[in-house]
Structure formats: C-alpha cells, structure tokens
C-alpha cells in the first residue's frame, strides 16, 4: 500500500480525533487552540499533497477496512475532491485564526470557546468526509456530521435570535436529510448498492421514469443544502445571526458541499442530460431572485447572504450546461466563491467591530476610521462582482463561454441573465461602499436619499456591538484570505487548467467506475 493512499482517511480521522482531544482540553483554551490549529494545518498539508499526487497519477481509491470495493466503504479522491479538500482546509484554517482573534478580544459569554473548537473540528471532519465519500451513504453520514456540528455552531450561546434562526435552519436541514435518506433507500431498492461507481454502472438499466424520479429526489435533497432558488428561503434568515466567523465558514463551505454533491449527481450518478434544462431554469431563477433580495437589504450580512444564494445560481448554471467546459467553469467558480464569500464575511466581521453595526443605514465614515478595513472589504467586493482582472471575472468568463458554446436558446438567455446579475451584484456592494465607507459619519443621523428609502433592516438584530477593538489575529486572517483571493487571480491560469482536467475527469463515467471497481477504463 502506498503512502498517499494512507493519507486519504486522515483528512476525516484527524479532525475527529482532534475534536475529542479538544473536548477533553475544555478547560484549557490555549491547548484547544493549539490542537485545532495543528490539526487543520496538517489537513491542509495533506490536502495539497493529495492534490499534487492525484493530479500527477490519477484518482486514489481507499478501501476502508480492506473490504473490496462494492462490498466495503470506499473513499475516492479524484481531482475535484482533492481540490475541494485543499481549498476547504485553507478556509477553515483562516476562519479559525479569525475566530481565535475575536474570542481573545471579546472574552465574552456569547462565544463559549470550549464548545466552539470541538464543534468546529467535527464540522471540518464532516465537510472532508462528504468530499472524499465514494459511497452514497457515506456522503449522507458526512452531511449529517457537518450539519449536526453546524446546529451547535449556529446556536452558540443560545440567545433568542440565534435560537429562532437555528430552529428554521435545523428543521429545514433535517427535512433535506430525510429526503436524501429516502432517495438512498429507493436507489438501493432499485440498484442493490450504495456504492456510487456501481450505481453509475447499473442506473442505465433502470426504466427511464424511475431514473428521473430518483434523480429529482436526489437533486431536491441537495438543492435544499445548496440553497437553490425555490429551496433557498432558509439561508438569508439563518446565517446572519451567527457570530461572524461561523457565518463566514457556513457561507463559504456548507452550501458548496451541496454544490459538490450536485456536481457528483449530474456527472457520475445520472450523466444523462434529461434534467439539464430544468436545472438551467432553476439556475436562472436562483440568480435573479437572490440578487433582487440582496438589493433590498440594509444589513451587510443579510445582503451578502442573498448574493450567496444568487451566486449559487452561477454554479448550477455551469453544471446544468452538461458539458466538460461547463463543469470545469463551475468547479473554478466554486473554488473562487468559497474563498471570496468567506473573505467578505470576515471583512464584514471587521466592519462590525469598527462601526458597531452591520446595517448600512447606521454605518458611516469607515474609510477615515479604518482605511485598512476599507481595502479588505473593497478587494473581495470587486472580486465578487466580477471586475477584471479578479478571479470572479475569470470564472464568470468561463461560464459564459460554456453557455455560448452550448448555444441553445435557453443557454443564450442564461448568458444574458448572468451578465445582468453580475452587474446587479455590483449595485448593493457599491451602495454599501458609498454609505458605510465614503459617507461621513456626521451625516448619518439626518441622511435622506433614494438609495436608502426602501432598504430593509434586519428585523432581529439591532443591537450594537460594544467591542470596538480589532485584534491583530482577526485582521491578519482577513489579510491572509484577501491575499489568497488575489493569489487565485494571479494563479488563475494553472488553476483553471486544473479545473478543466477535473471537469474532463467527470466527463463520461467510465474513468470513475474503472478507478473504483477496477477493470480497463
């Protein structure tokens, strides 16, 4: 057995062991911080090593417990999985540093650190498990691990606003998990297996209607998790109430795990194009409805949550095109969005610290108060809007090229809508910039403008944050994330070609099946 293969289960095992250790070290915060940061750094290194190995030699398949593929559980790391593992580990590490900085600066009862670290590590284990799962049921378990940890993180401190937001989030997530489980049961009944490669092999023999039923059921379950339009209502309601670092990691990672599952469903389990058109229509609605919601919001966190929903539409668009180029662009866009969305939420956390609130109707004069925070907000905001030369532009360009190459009327409509939504994304971001950063603080009380007349404030969180100090770690983590997002721009060429190779891997199921079950490709 070669060494890289042994590294595969470690991305799941290490965070779980770390979580247990962090729980035992509950009374010693510094030891907890040491454990969590060490574990996540090691996972990051492993992720990068796996990415290099997989890119050079092809997919790694780990048969857990030595049971052969269709009988035992397999962990499969292909280019897509390795890329997601590396990016997620980097984001998790950066957010951890930010959270530690915030915790050390506040030292309050709102973020009880002793629970935070174990839950955070369990969340990491769940995310990693979902990425490396080669088995539909293992994917379900991965989702459950990350969801249970996210329930705890979302309701940290148990304040009324968080309990209220948490209740919606938990009930909706539970419903999606039950749908997923029911889909697994039916897929097992129809194909006699939960191994993804074997399902992929056998699904073509089923009657077409049954295939469509199973396909729709899976997409419904993943659509709730990814917050695709008709199923996205829960997201802007629940994410903004959590502490800034928790929101950042939720927004960056959790919905992307749903997107990852959708990519797997569309490329490996059900590679037939029958549902591509409905997916494109859903993508269109997600983009438009999400961004219209964002325009109405005064609270930066809520506004960002709505843009998150809107940009999920871009990824679904890439998947729905059904071509290798579309999937490649979707993968690149996912990586870009994980990093940029997390960075924006972290910067918003800094804004909250400097300005005392996240509502643009009460913020002002931030640029003179803290130019650094201004830069840290502006760069990812421009990146999210897709201003060249940032990575958001590269990703959107890839998606648009993919849509143009497909060339059907629906794809061309989506092309136009994607451009319009990208412009509309700039509007709430630029408005935030104008009001919160450029508007002098003394104008805020009597400010009247058409810009703010119809804005809706967050009805639940109107409290002002007392702490006005920025810890070096918080700023450092945000600077690091901005640097990573800029690095993504500089390295867009190699990264995009990696995404293209990952997309090509997923074109045709033979390669995946051969890697897992053996046999000639």
């Amino acid at each position: 057995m070669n060494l890289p293969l042994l590294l595969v289960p470690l991305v799941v095992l290490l965070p779980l062991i770390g979580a247990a250790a962090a729980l035992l070290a509950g009374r010693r915060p510094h030891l907890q911080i040491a454990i969590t940061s060490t574990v996540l750094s090691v996972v990051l290194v492993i992720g990068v090593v796996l990415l290099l190995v997989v890119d050079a030699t092809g997919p790694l398949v780990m048969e857990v417990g030595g049971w052969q593929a269709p009988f035992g559980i397999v962990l499969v790391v292909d280019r897509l999985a390795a890329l997601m593992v590396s990016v997620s580990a980097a984001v998790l590490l950066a957010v951890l540093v930010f959270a530690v900085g915030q915790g050390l600066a506040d030292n309050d009862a709102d973020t009880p650190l002793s629970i935070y670290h174990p839950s955070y590590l369990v969340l990491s284990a769940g995310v990693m498990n979902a990425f490396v799962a080669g088995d539909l049921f293992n994917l379900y378990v991965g989702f459950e691990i990350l969801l249970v940890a996210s329930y705890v993180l979302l309701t940290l401190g148990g304040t009324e606003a968080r309990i209220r937001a948490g209740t919606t989030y938990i009930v909706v997530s539970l419903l999606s998990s039950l749908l997923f489980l029911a889909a697994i049961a039916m897929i097992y009944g129809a194909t006699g297996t939960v191994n993804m490669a074997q399902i992929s092999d056998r699904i073509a023999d089923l009657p077409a209607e049954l295939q469509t039923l199973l396909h729709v059921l899976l997409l419904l379950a993943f659509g709730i998790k990814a917050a695709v339009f008709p199923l996205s209502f829960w997201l802007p309601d629940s994410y903004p109430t959590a502490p800034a670092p928790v929101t950042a990691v939720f927004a960056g990672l959790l919905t992307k795990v749903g997107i990852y599952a959708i990519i797997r469903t569309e490329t490996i389990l059900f590679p037939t194009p029958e549902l591509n058109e409905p997916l494109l229509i859903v993508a269109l609605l997600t983009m438009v409805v999400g961004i219209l919601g964002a325009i109405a919001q005064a609270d930066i966190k809520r506004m960002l949550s709505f843009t998150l929903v809107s940009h999920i539409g871009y990824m679904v668009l890439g998947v729905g095109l059904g071509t290798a180029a579309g999937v490649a662009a979707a993968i690149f866009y996912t990586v870009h969005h994980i990093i940029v969305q997390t960075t924006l939420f972290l910067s918003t956390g800094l804004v909250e610290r400097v300005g005392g609130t996240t509502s643009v109707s009460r913020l002002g004069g931030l640029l003179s108060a803290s130019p650094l925070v201004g830069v840290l907000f502006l760069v990812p905001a421009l990146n999210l809007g897709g201003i060249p030369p940032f990575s958001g532009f590269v990703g959107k360009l890839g998606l648009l090229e993919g849509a143009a190459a497909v060339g059907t009327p629906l794809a061309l409509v989506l092309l136009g809508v994607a451009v319009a939504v990208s412009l509309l994304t700039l509007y709430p971001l630029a408005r935030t910039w104008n009001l919160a950063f450029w508007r002098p603080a003394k104008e805020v009380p009597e400010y009247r403008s058409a810009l703010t007349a119809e804005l809706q404030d967050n009805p639940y969180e109107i409290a002002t944050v007392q702490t006005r100090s920025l810890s070096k770690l918080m700023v450092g983590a945000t600077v690091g994330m901005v640097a990573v997002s800029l690095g993504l721009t500089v390295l867009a060429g190699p990264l995009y070609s990696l995404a293209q190779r990952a997309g090509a891997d997923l074109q045709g199921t033979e390669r995946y099946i051969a890697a897992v079950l053996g046999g000639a490709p």
Partner: protein
Amino acid sequence: MTASLVLVGVMAVLYACGVYLLLEKSMTRVILGVLLLGNATNLLLLIMSGPSGAAPIVDGEEALPYSDPVPQALILTAIVITFAVSAFLLALVYRSWRLAKEDEVQLDDEDVAIGTRETQPAEAPDRGEPDSSLGDALDDEAEASAADPALADERDR
C-alpha cells in the same frame, strides 16, 4: 422485489402524520413530526431490503435463505443520527421555551407587513374584497395583536 403490504401501509401513515405534524406551529409537534418522518424513512429502507423473516447473518455450511444485511446496517446508522438530532432539537425547544415562554413558532413581522400591505388603503378591511386566505389569517393575527397590547408586546419581544 417483494414487500410486505402492512409495512408499506404503516410507512405511508407515518409519512402522512409526520408531514401533518411538521406543518403545525407548535415546536413540540414539529419535533414529533420529524421523529415520525425519520421512522417512516427507516421503514422505507427496511422495505427496500426485500421480504422479511430470514436472519441477516447465517453461519454454517448449509445454504440457508438470508436477509440483506446492508439496509439493516444503514437503518441502524440512521436511527442513531435521528436520535442525536432529536435530543439536540429537544434541548433547543426547551431553551426557546425558557427564553420566550412559548412553544409556538412566532409570526414573521415582515410576512405580516406584506400580508397587511394591500389592505391598508381600504377603510373597512373585513368588508373589503376577499383576500387570499393567508393574507386573511395574517390580518386576523395582526388585528388581534393590535387589539390586545399584551400580545403585541409579546410578539415584539
């Protein structure tokens, strides 16, 4: 594939009751709904494993009929997960009850605002055009809370 009709019937009833309870406003009933749905899904897994009656693990040389053990393993995992999540949900609802002293899901102020918006210009809202039932329900709630200041206070909190 053979399936027991009784099991299918029980599953259908569990699903129906679960969905009904999930749509209630009381959080305790929502939890019960989630539990029923979880059990219905576990039954679905069991039904998918084929006819019942045989043991899942057979030891010995004779070729005895045996049940598919995989769904049973999956059900076991699913039961544990549902158990853990229900424990967390119960704690959450208890906490919410301690904080708000009520078990009901609170009305969303924005929804109330949207529901009452169209009827604002009308002088006599209850004699105006019949609105959608949702709008009416929200109207009633809003009127009730306007009439009873204590209720309104409670909602604002």
